[in-house]
């Protein structure tokens, strides 16, 4: 019996309790937070709490680049001071728009002082909806960014609807995470996103992360495609999967999904 994807995720844990982006690499916040959600794992949460930055954020700081993985960490942390400081940081963080972008939604960036993008914005919306729902201005802004960046016909890619007049097609992975964020907020976005996911998931199923996000999103929405995507996921035997993909697969097939089912 080959190890399940969850087994493989568990075996990727480092001695310090955290998880690296792939097995054998030092622990980092993003991978650890997602693994904590997937496995309901106290050791991973402890690692996170011990690696919170002084500004309340999470993520590596490399030279002038301050990576922001705070929202996914906030979703993983238990009630308490660490999560509250993370939420404060999320509320205070916004993407930056360059000249000509004044008045556009800001959303949340991958790193401080840069543009907002779909995936970090989706995570921030989830974290605020779950634990700081009174941050309505930021939630409205985040939803506005997802509306603004929606691909023509529905769904999302990394976060550009068009580029120099060309419509950019959506991706399964980013459509999946964005669907979690907009669940219950905007019927049109939800319907178009789900339809996009139904049309595209099979063509991108060779990627574990894409397949896992599709399966998780279908399950979240109670879509019939959840059955087939889960079946495909259980049969997947990726050669060298990364931790984030394994964690999403575990979320899609396990109990961690409830953490992302925000009100």
């Amino acid at each position, binding site marked *: 019996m080959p190890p399940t994807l969850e087994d493989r995720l568990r075996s990727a844990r480092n001695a310090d309790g955290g998880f690296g982006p792939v097995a054998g690499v030092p622990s980092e916040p993003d991978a650890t937070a997602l693994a904590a959600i997937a496995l309901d794992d106290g050791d991973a949460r402890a690692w996170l709490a011990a690696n919170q930055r002084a500004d309340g954020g999470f993520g590596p700081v*490399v*030279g*002038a*680049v301050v990576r922001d993985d705070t929202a996914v960490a906030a979703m993983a942390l238990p009630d308490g001071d660490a999560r509250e400081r993370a939420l404060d940081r999320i509320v205070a963080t916004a993407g*930056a728009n360059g000249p000509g972008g004044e008045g556009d939604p800001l959303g949340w960036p991958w790193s401080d002082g*840069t543009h907002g993008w779909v*995936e970090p914005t989706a995570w921030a919306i989830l974290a605020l909806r779950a634990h700081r729902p009174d941050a309505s201005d930021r939630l409205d802004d985040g939803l506005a960014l997802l509306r603004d960046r929606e691909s023509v016909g529905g769904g999302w890619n990394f976060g550009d609807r068009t580029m120099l007049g060309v419509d950019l097609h959506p991706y399964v992975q980013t459509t999946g995470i964005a669907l979690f964020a907009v669940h219950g907020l905007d019927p049109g976005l939800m319907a178009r996103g789900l339809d996009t996911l139904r049309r595209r998931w099979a063509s991108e199923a060779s990627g574990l992360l894409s397949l896992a996000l599709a399966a998780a999103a279908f399950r979240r929405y109670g879509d019939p495609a959840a059955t087939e995507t889960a079946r495909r996921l259980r049969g997947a035997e990726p050669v*060298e999967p990364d931790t984030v993909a394994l964690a999403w697969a575990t979320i899609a097939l396990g109990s961690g999904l409830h953490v992302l089912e925000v009100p």
Partner: protein
Amino acid sequence: MNEHEHRSGIDRRTFLARAAGATVAVVGATAVGWRLGHPHRPPPFDTRIFGPPGEATVAVLKASSYEGALEDVVLEGLRQIGADVHGARVLLKPNMVEFDPGSAINTDPRLVAATVAAMRRLGAASVTVGEGPGHRRDTGYVVTASGLAAHLRDAGASFVDLNTAAASPLRTNSSYTGLGELWLPQAIAEADVVVSMPKMKTHHWVGVTLSLKNLFGTLPGRVYGWPKNALHWASIEGSILDIAGVVRPRYAIVDAIVGMEGNGPIDGTSKPVGLLVFGDDPVATDVTSATIMGMDPGRIAYLQEAGRFLGQADPSRIRQAGEDPAAVITPFAPAPGFANLVAS
């Protein structure tokens, strides 16, 4: 080793290790200060590391398709530039920023596989292929759907996802961005020889994307994002220079069998050229490639700046082997806003 490393007498890994540990006194400069027209400002790169670029060799070989004896063509090209990889740990860095069926976005996997085989025939101790896709977080999808995974499996070569691989911070050797440090995968830092393998493409932000711009894919998305927007905000052209100054690719092989023109690097149009461009110097390789594209390399600001320290940008000091670039010019439609680059 390239000329600078020969001169300093250290190999590439030693160089990187020293760079990581040293407090490199890079002369401060802003992204504005290095622009052409200010050649007398203090150099924004460490002159103790980068000497004046020397002579370079570039070979342009005809290759009409990705089928047939591509491995032999690659081997011949590498021989013409005097590539020495005997006993070396080689890392090939193709351009796999995204995948879109039927497009010419990526370095063709068949060329990558042929290069793996050619490197082995030249005595490389190991050959690894590494990439950190810039748009897609799901590298597994890009590598599988593009066919690269199957070709590498057939070739018995390994792939490393540079977006998730072990990495550590390295101080930059130049200061075109102010980033200060770059998070560089160990697979890059520990390779004896890095070969940049771009697609010959136009680029809607910097005009052309070749062996220098291709190095964006060496930095991990888990720090810089998808897309690697932190590098854009810091200055795309400056990032090209700062990254190349740390990665220091030893050779370049440009996939110009089919390139991309117009609205590249993603949404352009396929452009059959029927060439492969090999170089022992990334700047010289890009100068020659831009010339073949019908662009004036003298008008590509980042390339001219790179010629101050990263390699040879002066065509008179580039020894051309194989086809005469002037005889195989295949004009590319420029990216929107870059008509000024077209050679007159």
